[in-house]
């Protein structure tokens, strides 16, 4: 069984969905995670220093990568599931034929 193709298609769809609906929230949440970490490390209220800005940027990148990965892996799993479901009738049809031969 080749599960790779439907999984890759699923991952691509997942990534497209991520870009369409989840990129901005992921950047926002990631950036906020950076703000919270900066608050713990450098103290509150958080001042816009270079290190704080860097940590917020890092948080944004991690947020986008994390949510993007979740969509990609989720899409790959969904793609594989669709692939298996699509393959099942063909396999069932092939099974009696193989028994007869």
């Amino acid at each position, binding site marked *: 069984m080749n*599960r*790779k193709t439907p*999984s*890759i298609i*699923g*991952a691509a769809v997942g990534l497209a969905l991520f870009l369409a609906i989840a990129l*901005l*929230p992921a950047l*926002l*949440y990631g*950036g*906020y*995670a950076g*703000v*919270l*970490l*900066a*608050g*713990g*490390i450098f*103290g*509150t*209220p958080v001042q816009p220093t270079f290190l704080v800005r860097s*940590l917020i940027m*890092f948080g944004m*990148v*991690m*947020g986008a*990568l*994390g*949510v993007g*990965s*979740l969509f*990609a*892996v989720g899409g*790959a*799993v969904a*793609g*594989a599931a669709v692939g298996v479901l699509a393959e099942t009738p063909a396999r069932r049809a092939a099974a009696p034929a193989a028994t007869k031969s």
Partner: protein
Amino acid sequence: MKTLLLSLLLTFPMAAAAADAPAKAAAPDPNQACFDCHVASKPGEVGVRPAEFGKSVHASFGCTDCHADYQAPGPHELAPLTGADAALVARSEALKASTAPRAYLACGNCHAEVVEQVAASVHGKWAKGDAKVAGPTCASCHGSVHEIVKGVATPAPAGATFATGARAISERCEKCHADPAYVEKAGLKGDVVVTFHDSIHGRLVNTGSALAPACADCHGAAEKDGKGVLRPNAHKILAKTDPASPVAGKNRAGTCGRCHAGANDNFAKLVAHNDPAHSESKIPHFLHVVFSWLAALTLIFFAGHVALDLFAEIRHKVRMRKAGHGHDPAKESQFVQRFDLHQRAQHWLMLVGVILLGVTGWPLRGAGSPEAIETSRKILGLFGGPHGAALLHRIAAVMIIISGGYHLLYLVLHGARRTLAFSMLPGPRDVGEIRDNIRYMLAGGDRPAYGKYSYLEKFDYWAVFWGMIMMVGTGFVLWFPVFFATYAPHWLLTSAQIIHGEEATLALLFLFVVHFYNAHLKPSIFPMNWVWLTGKMSHAMLEEEHRGQYEELVEKKKDPHP
């Protein structure tokens, strides 16, 4: 003839009524004479917007009901004020108040009881004594006096303790309390709005909870309503330093107890929206700093690791292609059993639980950021709002607890049968493999010949133990705060809040970025390592990812494809 007379008698009044109807419909608006001169075209402009006034709670009022001393036609002269009213207007003008004090006086003509309450509250102090800035009048909170609408104080739904417009109310408080210039001038505490949004109450209010309290619900003096139930009075906000304030000293536990039955002083210390640095105990602040460093450094290290590995993977792929190495169909069609059904079931429970925890928990945490509030409301709305998400969050927590218990039982049973492999235990070999892998990623050469589990997989495994203890432990404290407040010191509760949030950030970003990359998304594995579903790994992948184990198997079986 009789019929004709009867018809005339019946139709005449009807005709008269019909003729009267358009006259009534076209009856001139008694306010129209005023609107002829005093119409505003946009909010903030002096005058009235007739359409908005028509929708307001005062739509049935005539202009002169409030503007009692004015006589049409203009120009109008105001009757001079005397006594306290004159002093209030003079003070307001001296302090350059942004809202009209005369409107405040006019409101008092009908709402005398409310105006008295405001005058007795901290918000009425400025009108009576020395003040650096002008405080609020009715219009400051209720908006333009000509456009006051219902909605803020809509009755609470069944089971709710507070009015549904909690967010709208807190936004009105923020107009002054989040204005840095005003806060500085008035000598107010500067971070109250930030710390409120960062608190669990603030986040719940932001995401549309009908159960969470806004500012006035805790800071307003509680008074019994007609049914004898204590209700906060937003018109009677008392300063924290006022002994009668619901949040002053010994009153706090009772205020919390209005919603959290059994709340004691310990509990009241937990919910105060304060910076941990200003907590009574130094422990929460210390833990805040430690966990922030831990999360930041762990993520920076592993993000760097992922970046280096990606670079090494691409380099390896290019070299393999140049060297003409292709896939070996024989190795790709043969498999070794890596995980049994029990291990996979534990992982399925854990992954579903963790993802569910992430999607129901992080939006609430993210709602502390003003920019992310709407996103959080939409995401939590998918689960029926913040309280629906909270229920799912607890169900997911139970799932990961079952997974953890299942795994411990699995280990104990294997230990009893003496079949426990101990292959996950870290050892000196891992130190060498870390060094060799970093060298490989930076400079090329051969990837270390990992055994059954690489150091990354061992870190993944042991990190779950740490994460479970931290997240489940602190999660229970947050799930049953009144119970823990009864037996534990207050710093434990505050610390639990801090650790739960910081550890969630670390765990989710680590799992979704680092674990997903290593397990599924790196180029040599993409799109999926099927072992989490089938429990089997192809010989080709085993050779690539766990060459040490592959070589051991080959050696043991003397078979190129064991």
